[in-house]
Each structure stands twice: as structure tokens, then as C-alpha cells.
């Protein structure tokens, strides 16, 4: 973007389309957060491309006054890969859900992350299949009662952030749909060059109402959420508790912080480039620990599309795109009126 970026307002990012989510759905809050964040990113609507798969969340592109592609179930990462390779200048956002990204599209999510395509992936996790009327999803907890699991689900859920980390993602964040911090997470994700994976806990008011309340509810948030910030100690419960390393078991533990002296309690200072700690934060069992929210991991490395562009340029260097010469390549012979000549 060489020319002066036009300053946009929230209104510039809204379409004239009627939003069709259930009243009270967490998707509304996420949509507003995105529309509110876009003007702050200094980007233009015409350079922005929202790509989604199938599911409630995947209606999202229709409501953004940008380019948008509502694709097929699970395949948004693959469509996004083609679009970004075709035009690396596009600012690509993938909107997906727990079923879309981790069940039918798990393969594409994995490969997009390992390739490190420069884009933002917003996974709306509501632990349920909403659009098909409430079946359990790959993130539903064991025992979830749904029309397809009337006696409760028996299979273990996938952890989206652990999946992302295992796939090689270099940016992993967690956010809550109605949380004001979502905007900051979006900004961090956007500033990360490479695949930025964001799990957003999203309340499905119809089929899985308040399933995240144990940590998302505002009144208990202080004790149930660990709000992460790079370079800051991992404190919660109004600074009275913190996360420290148990050196004997090489695992995390909750420690009490007395009189704000977190150093004395050996509370860990969050370093977003520390992959091992990111893994432990992702895997902290909720209940015994708070839920880690915010940017868990951020350590960029070169992106896929940049490598492709560079290799294409190198391979083409000094070569002329001469179609006739290409067709004539290899051993040829000429036939004249008198017959063939070697």
C-alpha cells in the first residue's frame, strides 16, 4: 500500500445485508468487534478478503463491506491459500467454526498453519453444530447431550489451540466473544506476519447456551481468567494469584502472591515467543487453573506465499516467456516437400 490509506470508520465496513444470526448469538459481538477494529488497522476494504466455510460463523463475510467468499464446508483454508498465492497483497481473514475447521476441514487447517500462509484465522468455538440444529462437535466435552448423542457424547474433545500449536502455528490466541480484549487480540493477530490463529469462545444461545460461563462470566472473571500480556507477570485474582513453574515436575502451578510481590512468588513473566510455555498455557486444566486468554504465542517466521513468490521469481530469472521456443524445445526435425531432414 504505497498510497495514503484512507481513514475508514466502522460504517465503511458494514454491508446493507440483514444479519441473520439468532438474537443473542455471540457472533454479533464478534462482528462488531471486527468492524470496530478494521479502521484501526489502516487497511482498505478493497484489499481485504474474508473467506469462510460452512456453519453459522461462515455467514460472516456477507456482513463485511469487503471482498468475501462463502465457500464450502471445511475448505476455506484451501480457497484462501489459492487466493493469497494469486494475490499476496490481499489481507486475508478466514472465518470458521469448530466443526468447519477441526472436523470436516481439519486437514486444511493443519496444512495452512504448517505452511504459514499470511492470514488471520478466526475459529468461532461454540462446541456445537448450530446450523444443523445442535449435534455435538469435535470440541464438545465428554457427555454432551445432543440429538445425535442422546446418551451423551463419549469421545474426547480436540483442543483448538493445541491442534494449532502442533500443526506449527506461529501465532496462537484465545478470546471471548463479548470480551473487550477481543479487539486487542485481533490487532495483534493482524500485525503478525504469517498464519495467526485465534480461538474465540462463542456462545451459542440456542444449542449450547452459556457453556463457557464457568470462565467467561463477567462476575467471576477475575478468578477464572488469566489475561496474558507479553512481558507482564501471569497474574489473576486481582494480582493475588499467579502462575509459576514447579521445577520438580516441570509443570505449571498456581501460587499465592503476597503484597503484590510476584517476583518473590516466582510468577512467570509471559514471553510470547516461548513455545514450551505456550504449550503449557494451552494445556492448563481449567478448574485447577484459570483459562489463559489473550496472545499465547507469537513468534513469526517467513510466510508461505513469500517463499513461493521468491522461488517463482528465481526460477524465472533470466528466462524469457517465449511460447514458440517452449513448443520447439527438445529434438525436432523438419519435413520439407522432399521429405524429412535431420
Amino acid at each position: 500500500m504505497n498510497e495514503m490509506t484512507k481513514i475508514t470508520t466502522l460504517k465503511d465496513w458494514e454491508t446493507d445485508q440483514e444479519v441473520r444470526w439468532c438474537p443473542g448469538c455471540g457472533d454479533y459481538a464478534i462482528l462488531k468487534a471486527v468492524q470496530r477494529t478494521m479502521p484501526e488497522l489502516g487497511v482498505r476494504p478493497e484489499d481485504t478478503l474474508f473467506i469462510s466455510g460452512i456453519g453459522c460463523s461462515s455467514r460472516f463475510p456477507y456482513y463485511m463491506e469487503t471482498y468475501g467468499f462463502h465457500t464450502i464446508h471445511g475448505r476455506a483454508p484451501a480457497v484462501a491459500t489459492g487466493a493469497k498465492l494469486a494475490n499476496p497483497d490481499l489481507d486475508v481473514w478466514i472465518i470458521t467454526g469448530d466443526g468447519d475447521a477441526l472436523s470436516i476441514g481439519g486437514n486444511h487447517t493443519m496444512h495452512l498453519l504448517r505452511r504459514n500462509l499470511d492470514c488471520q484465522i478466526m475459529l468461532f468455538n461454540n462446541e456445537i453444530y448450530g446450523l444443523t440444529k445442535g449435534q455435538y462437535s469435535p470440541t464438545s466435552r465428554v457427555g454432551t447431550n445432543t440429538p445425535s448423542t442422546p446418551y451423551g457424547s463419549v469421545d474426547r474433545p480436540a483442543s483448538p489451540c493445541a491442534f494449532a500449536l502442533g500443526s506449527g502455528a506461529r501465532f496462537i490466541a484465545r478470546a471471548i466473544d463479548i470480551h473487550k480484549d477481543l479487539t486487542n487480540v485481533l490487532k495483534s493477530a493482524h500485525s503478525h506476519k504469517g498464519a495467526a490463529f485465534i480461538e474465540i469462545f462463542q456462545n451459542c444461545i440456542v444449542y449450547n447456551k452459556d457453556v463457557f460461563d464457568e470462565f467467561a462470566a463477567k462476575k467471576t472473571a477475575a478468578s477464572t481468567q488469566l489475561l496474558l500480556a507479553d512481558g507482564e507477570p501471569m497474574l489473576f485474582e486481582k494480582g493475588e494469584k499467579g502462575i509459576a513453574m514447579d521445577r520438580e515436575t516441570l509443570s505449571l502451578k498456581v501460587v499465592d502472591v503476597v503484597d503484590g510481590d510476584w517476583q518473590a512468588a516466582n510468577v512467570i513473566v509471559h514471553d510470547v515467543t516461548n513455545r514450551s510455555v505456550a504449550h503449557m498455557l494451552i494445556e492448563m486444566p481449567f478448574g485447577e487453573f484459570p483459562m489463559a486468554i489473550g496472545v499465547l504465542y507469537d513468534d513469526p517466521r517467513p510466510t508461505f506465499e513469500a517463499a513461493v513468490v521468491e522461488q517463482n521469481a528465481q526460477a524465472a530469472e533470466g528466462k524469457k516467456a517465449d511460447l514458440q521456443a517452449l513448443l520447439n524445445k527438445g529434438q525436432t526435425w523438419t519435413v520439407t516437400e522432399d521429405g524429412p531432414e535431420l
Partner: protein
Amino acid sequence: MATALKQDDNSSNQPESAENVVVRFAGDSGDGMQLTGGQFTLSTALAGSDLATFPDFPAEIRAPQGTLFGVSAFQINFGSRAIETAGDEPDVLIAMNPAALKTNVDALRDGGLIIADSGEFGKRNLDKAKYENNPLEDGSLAKWQLLKLDISALTLEAVKPFGLGNKEALRSKNMWTLGLALWMFERERQPIIDWLNTKFAKLPDVAGANIAALNAGHAYGETAELSGDGLGSGHLTTRKVGAAPSAPGEYRTVTGAEALSLGLVAGAQLADVPMFFGGYPITPASAILHHLSRLKEFDVTTFQAEDEIAAIAAAIGASYAGKLGITSSSGPGIALKGEAMGLAIMTELPLVIINSQRGGPSTGLPTKTEQSDLYQAVYGRNGDAPMPVIAARSPSDAFECAIEAVRIAVQYMTPVMLLTDGYIANAAEPWQIPDVASLEPFPVTYLDKMPEGGLKPYSRDEKFARPWIKPGTPELMHRIGGIEKGIDTGHIDYGSANHQKMTEIRRDKVLGVADSIPDQDVALGNAGGKLAVVGWGSTYGPIHQAVRRAVEAGKDVAHIHIRNIWPMPKNLGELLKSYDRVIVPEMNTGQLKTLLRDQYLVDAKPINKVSGQPFTIAEIDAAIEENLS
């Protein structure tokens, strides 16, 4: 001048002259038979003969040595007249081991020549080929001419100066054999020597050994002939196969996969649009991905995706972003791409999908040829999902078909299916190199300004094509997707009248492609008459030769070969009805036949073969005979 070793008539010192000769090289899959065949093809092409080849190899990369299922064969038919098929029956079989003999000898014409490497006919190899007795000794090959040569020993002798190990040295056996074959048919060795020197530039000993073996095989022919001593019951002679009359111009050999890749590049250049190719490895389609991966200077981006679905989905994403998306696979992969094809139809984006067909269903016969995906191409998607379908008939025809597929895709904003098959993909033939200046450009235009009356992403031109708008274009932001689109606006619209109308628009847009394609011609014979033999794809060769023979014999037969499978040429119905009978030879159980009956209510009769091998001319001859009586 070469003369025959054993001649009935001693008066002639001239080589036997043949109109065409069919040679099959057969050996273990590690013996380098495809390479031998490929080089023999090159020297034959350079001599100006017309030719067609048929590589026939196992699905296993390196099957256990000496086994029946590990046999790899390469057949070439070359002649001084137009050659359309790889030949029904070989005249010469070169068998590098007992298994190769066993699996190929029955195809040899009676009286044909077998050249066998007797050094490989020990007990172990005979057991592996399930021979109880040595066929070279027990008289079981009496109806053919047999030449036993210890090619292994002769090769070892020839390459001795290079000091290679036994195993390494024996790798040159194929070059020894090639040398003999070049002598037999009076072909030049130099192009192959040049090629070996280039290929093994970094391994001069290996190059030297191979060249020595090549020369030794050639010298063996000369010496054996001159010395005139007995070579068992063998009949070693040279045969002159002259140049075929062909149009003046520059030629090269080309396989279907090469020609198709070149055609895609040419098509993209003519459309003035960068190409994005998404592929996933699958036999026999991978060669296209390999070829295109090396052509970055033509603004080609290739992407090996994580699966077949991602390959087409990425191509669709690239098309949305303004490049020409192309994807390629074979039947099983095409099945996986089905849903995404529907998305391309619904979002009306240009896309080319190539199916290199193979034997099916399921994994089927990965390395064998079949044309049984026609239903899949025309009908194989959910919903009313019309898509233009084109079928290439030969390696060189694949070039033109690829350009045509690109043209239809960009002019009509639609996915297009291009059908080829394993036979076309791997077979080589001489190709008159097109003059690029004679190819007509069809540059695309993108909508890049707000039209009067506002943006309507689903408005249409006279071809019913919607505008192609690249993301990044100011003011023209819009959303597309797989949900039914409102007329003109492209907004989500579930309305019943809208769906009726949009379904009709999609149908009529694709049917309208018929306005831009030529009328169906008659490839051979008269328009109207007793019998039409109607084919599509790689059956062109055997049908054409069989019909030629019938026409030359004064029979009222015509050959019609359909390139545009969907929509079909506008005159096709009338044309078919002008014959008393219509037969449709296909390498499936009758798929084009069904389509013709459905479209035109003609009594098309199926002639079917699904053995994994192409039709022989004799099989089509027989069908013609039966249907003329």
C-alpha cells in the same frame, strides 16, 4: 547394405521394406524398457516415420524382479504411412526375461520374431515366470521365429573396459538391445549417444558404458549378418521403414501429458491471464503437475496441495483472485473434487479441471487406460450442475483441447472439464509444432470500474457470463458463495422463482457454448449412409484405421469423433440420424452411447472393451463387419 541372415531368395541384397512395423520391448520393471522405448521412438521420429506408442507398465514401482506382475512393456508402431494406433499385433518382441516372454508372446503375430535374452532364462527366472521347461529350448515357440542371444553376457563383455560392477554393468543391457533394434531398422545412433552424454554428463563412465553397449548391440547385428553363420533358428535382418508423408513443417515427439501442459500454458497466454495450477499426486495425472512446475517464467504458479479437494479449492480461490485456476487429477480424485466443482458452477468462476482417466471404479487400475468417467464428467455432481466437457483424442490433440478448455472457461465464466486418459497421457507421437502466431488470442477483461447503475456481480453479457472482478479493485467489493444467488445482485436468495430462473440461466449459459464451437465433422467417409462409427477420446486411432480399411474396401462406413462432449455440436443430432446404423466403440460399458440416445433418440449400439488395453483395429473391423451385414 544390410541383408537378411536367412533368406529364401539369395538374389536380393536389399533390406526388406515394410509399410509399418510393430515392435514391443518387454522386460522387468527395473530393465529400463520405457526408456529404451522412448529413445527408439525419438530416433524413429527423427527418421521421419509416423508412429504411435503404447507404454504398458505395472502399478508397482519396483515389483519383485523377474515376476510376471513386474513386467514393463513399450510398444511402438512406426511406418511410412499414417499411423494412428500402437498396432494390434507386434511383429517383433524383444523379451529381456522369461516373465516378459510369457506375458507378451501371445500378442505376437504368427511368424513374428522373438529376440530373447537367453542369459536370463536360468531356472530361477523360469520358476518365477512359472515355466516348467525352458521355452527357448522346448519347441513351444515354434510358430514364431526365435533368436536367442545372451544379451547379458554380450553386454558385460562390451562394457568391460569401464570397470563397472556386475550389477551396474548389466544396467546397460537395455542399451545393447536398443543398439540391435536401431540396426534392424536402420536408425541413427547419434541422437541417443548425444542424449546419453547429456544425461550422464557427471558420470562419464556410465555414459561410456551405455554408449559402448549401444554400439556393441549395433555391431552385433552387422557382424552376425556379415558372418552369415547360424544363430539358432533366428532370423536376423534389417527392415527398411521409410519416412511417412507428412505436411511440411517442424516436428517433435510429444506425449499427451506434455502436449496438454503446453496447451494450458498457451491458453493462459492467449487469454493473457496468469495461471494457477493446484494438483495432488495421482497416476496418471501427475506428469502435468511436473511439467508445469518447471515453467515459472510463463507466470505459472503450481501448488501441490494436501489433498484433491484442497487442490481444486485453491484453484477456485486463485480464480476468484483473478488468475486462471486449473486442477488436474484422475477419476478417484475427480470424485473428491465434486463438491468444489459445484461451488465453481454456483460462483461462476473460470476453472479448468483435467481428468486423466484410468480404470475404475475406486482405485481400479491406476496405470491402465479406460474412458469410463464420461458420466462422472457430464452428470457427476449434486444439483443441476451443468459444465462444458471436452475430450482429447490423441497426444497432439490434447494441445488444442487445452487451449479450447481455457477459452470456454474464461469466455463463459464457468468450470470446464477436459478429459484425457492414461493412454493419451503416456503415449508419444510426432507433432507438427504449431506456429504461435497462428493461434487466435482471446484476452480476458476484468470489470475494474463501477458500472453505470451500480455494481451487479451477477449481471450478464451476451454469453450469459458474469463479470470477473478481482479483489483489490476499489469500490467493487462484493461477496460470492455457494448459496443460491439472486439474479443480477448475487445476494443470497432462497426464493423459489429466483432458483428456477437461476437454474435455467446456468443451464442455458453452458448450452450456449455450442454457439462457439464448430459443427461436428465426419473424420472419414460420407455424411449420411449405412453405418457411422462414433467415438470420443483415445479410441480415435483404432476407429480411424478400421474405417479407413472399410472405406478402401468400398464399404459405406463413416467415422465421427466427438470432441465436445457437452454441449454437443448443434448439427450432431441431424448428422447421426442420416445413417442407418450408429455404433459407439468405447472403453467403458456404454456411456457416450447413453448420452447420444438421451440427446437425440438415436439407436446407438455400444461396442465395449474394459480390459485396460486400447481397442485393436481388428476389434473395430469385426464390429463394422457385423453391423454392415
